[in-house]
């Protein structure tokens, strides 16, 4: 038995995993319309490379990754692109964003794929490129592009590869199903990842002990491989052991320091679903276009795991499982601890949708009202990141961003263990999420204000410099003028009494005469006057509109401007009338 460590805190919510394991893994008939949001991963949204009306094949690239921290998106089935438009996204804000909408033609024709039988012979870069181009993102729920995690910085030596089969959250059994039905692919995927990381010393597959069948299945698959260095490690069930940093601590005893990555302690951790996707990408050239999702909850007639194409609308899935909207407490994407409620079922399954939870009112009643904090400290006992949730709570309420940072709020994984144990039912994680957002906004504002200050100071300097130069030029001109005058006086003195011609006066008179006789065509003049009138009257209109909206002192100021504008309008009208009279008369 390999040694396992324990993490601080953690809770044991009721598992509720048996409801979705009664039936075998199933597939649904293809949905008529599939919606692919351009952003299903951490990082920048992908850029669509298809247009409305294009025919696409299953597995065809339809959106390219934008930069290194982004992921490709592929068509989950064959059909036509019916549009690239804003649709409601499966995001806690309920907002919408650009999506590629594909209407399926029902034929499910594959595009040409780049299969590779001897992937063991492929070199590092080719292997990585296959995984990257398949658009694989962390399927355990985080959505971090896998290709980046699998390519740690050059100086970091990876000695442990961990496959995360923990699935600690209640209700969710997607990874359990995957490990039971596709154990060989998990093992093969582990081998590919190991190859990519330069064959680390230990390759561990971490599975909680509440999944004995999955453990058996994987162990059996491992025993069929010769000389395999991979080890299945089972450890006591606790939420949230499946968090990356928590799992690393359990399996290796190493703690990832605050602000650092697992690669910094020599570990790379990948979800089993992402591992299988990587295997399929390398071996068969298949991009990430479908995933196993748990559909569970008492408001459904059928509860099971399904292999579902990415982009399938959740409403369609619910329909196929006998969903009764009247019974449901709330529709949750994800699990009961870390999922979020959906306002509408009109959102698609994305790469990170590990569960669709539709509990009945009896199963998941509305949360009781929050009461005052009694300072019991149970939250600190439960925190897996060894933080002080109570202090974070008080400082969140006081909006004291400095103190929050000092208490390491950035290390909070938002697992919800503290909210779960709180006897006052305070939604602690909501406070931390809001505070993190406020801190991010504050940092953005600070950066902007620093930039603005720099610009303003530069502008002051520029103006000063211009002033100084102007002064210098003026002084120089004055000196030159004096010199010229002196020279002229000297010249006049030497020439004696010559008639003093007022040169400047002549020049000015000549200019005035020229201006008077200048031929401006009447059309141009008319156009000029009409333009002046129209701008003056539109200015008057706008000022009037503003005057109506304003009140009090501001209104008086604006009314003064209205009078001003009215004068200008009448002025312009008079000029135009005069001109027209002159022309016509």
């Amino acid at each position, binding site marked *: 038995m390999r040694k396992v460590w324990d993490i601080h805190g953690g809770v044991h919510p009721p598992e509720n995993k048996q409801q979705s394991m009664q039936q075998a893994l199933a597939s649904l008939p293809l949905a008529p319309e599939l919606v692919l949001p351009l952003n299903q991963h951490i990082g920048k949204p992908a850029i669509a490379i298809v247009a409305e009306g294009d025919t696409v094949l299953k597995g065809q690239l339809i959106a390219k990754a934008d930069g290194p921290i982004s992921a490709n998106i592929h068509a989950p089935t064959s059909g036509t692109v019916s549009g690239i438009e804003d649709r409601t996204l499966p995001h806690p804000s309920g*907002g919408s964003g650009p999506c590629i909408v594909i209407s399926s033609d029902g034929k499910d024709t594959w595009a040409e794929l780049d299969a590779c039988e001897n992937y063991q012979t492929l070199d590092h870069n080719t292997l990585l490129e296959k995984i990257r181009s398949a658009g694989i993102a962390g399927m355990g729920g985080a959505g971090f592009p896998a290709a980046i995690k699998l390519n740690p910085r050059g100086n970091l030596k990876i000695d442990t590869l961990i496959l995360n089969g923990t699935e600690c959250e209640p209700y969710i059994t997607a990874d359990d199903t995957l490990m039971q039905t596709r154990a060989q692919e998990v093992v093969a995927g582990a081998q590919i990842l190991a190859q990519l990381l330069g064959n680390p010393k230990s390759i561990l597959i971490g599975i909680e002990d509440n999944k004995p069948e999955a453990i058996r299945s994987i162990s059996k698959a491992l025993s069929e491989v010769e000389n395999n260095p991979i080890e299945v490690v089972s450890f006591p069930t606790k939420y949230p052991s499946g968090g990356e940093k928590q799992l690393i601590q359990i399996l290796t005893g190493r703690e990832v320091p605050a602000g650092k990555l697992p690669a910094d302690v020599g570990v790379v951790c990948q979800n089993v679903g992402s591992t299988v996707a990587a295997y399929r990408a390398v071996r068969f050239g298949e991009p990430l276009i479908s995933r196993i999702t748990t559909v569970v909850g008492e408001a459904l007639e059928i509860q099971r795991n399904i292999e579902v194409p990415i982009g399938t609308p959740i409403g369609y899935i619910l329909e196929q499982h006998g969903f009764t909207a009247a019974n449901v407490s709330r529709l949750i994407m994800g699990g009961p601890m870390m999922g979020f409620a959906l306002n509408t079922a009109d959102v698609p399954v994305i790469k990170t949708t590990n569960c669709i939870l539709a509990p009945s009112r009896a199963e998941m009643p509305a949360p009781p*009202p929050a009461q005052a904090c009694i300072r019991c400290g149970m939250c600190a006992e439960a925190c897996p990141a060894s933080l002080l949730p109570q202090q974070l709570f008080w400082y*969140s309420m006081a909006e004291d961003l400095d103190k929050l940072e000092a208490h390491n709020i950035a290390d909070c994984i938002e697992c919800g263990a503290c909210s779960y144990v709180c006897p006052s039912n305070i939604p602690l994680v909501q406070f931390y999420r*809001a505070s993190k957002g406020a801190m991010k906004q504050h940092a953005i504002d600070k950066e902007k204000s620093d930039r*603005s200050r720099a610009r*303003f100071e530069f502008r002051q300097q520029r103006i000063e410099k211009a002033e100084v130069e102007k002064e210098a030029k003026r002084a120089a001109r004055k000196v030159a003028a004096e010199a010229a005058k002196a020279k002229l006086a000297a010249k006049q003195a030497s020439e004696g009494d010559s008639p003093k011609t007022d040169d400047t006066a002549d020049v000015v008179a000549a200019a005035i005469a020229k201006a008077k006789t200048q031929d401006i065509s009447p059309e141009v003049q008319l156009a000029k006057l009409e333009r002046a009138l129209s701008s003056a009257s539109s200015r008057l209109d*706008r000022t009037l509109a503003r005057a109506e909206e304003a009140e009090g002192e501001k209104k008086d100021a604006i009314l003064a401007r209205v009078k001003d504008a009215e004068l200008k309008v009448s002025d312009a009208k008079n000029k135009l009338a005069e001109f027209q009279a002159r022309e016509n008369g």
Partner: protein
Amino acid sequence: MIELIIQYPVLAALLAMVGLSLVFGAVLGFAAVKFKVEGDPIVEQIDSLLPQTQCGQCGHPGCKPYAEGIANGEAINKCPPGGQTTINAIADLLDVEAPTLDEEHGEEKDLPTVAYIREDECIGCTKCIQACPMDAILGAAKQMHTVIIDECTGCDLCVEPCPVDCIDMLPLESTLGEWKWSLPPRSETLALNIIASDRKAHSEASA
């Protein structure tokens, strides 16, 4: 000598005190020269908390002059673009109470606004460019003027000078990337909703 001084206690006392004072005076004089402080670095620290919109709503021609004003004892609640968060931060720095925003100088806007020049009407006069404290308007004489949104702080100083009145202050659209969770209600307000009689009393009080 000491015996002499002891014989005349008053003299002794006087000598002792005067002697001490002289010595200490010398020490302090030396210290005053050695530890001389130029300027007032607190101004920099206050300025770093102000939002740098240079809008003039506080009555000063920019944020640095207002920071200097605050260092000289002015009220800290005159900055509408900074809002209550800035007031709290300055109060924290100076260890004083945080008052609410003085409405005389303007209201805190909920949504940030930026200037937008309607290009069809722009006549290229550069009056707005000269007015912008941030140099956030791109353009030249008789060339099209346009506002660089990333640098615009929404101070409104460009709206007045425009002779054809073609500048609008539009709210900045917030994208999904900027969406953030909002703070749940404070537990005191929540606690009032649990006991029915409290709930009623509270709603009557606030009604």
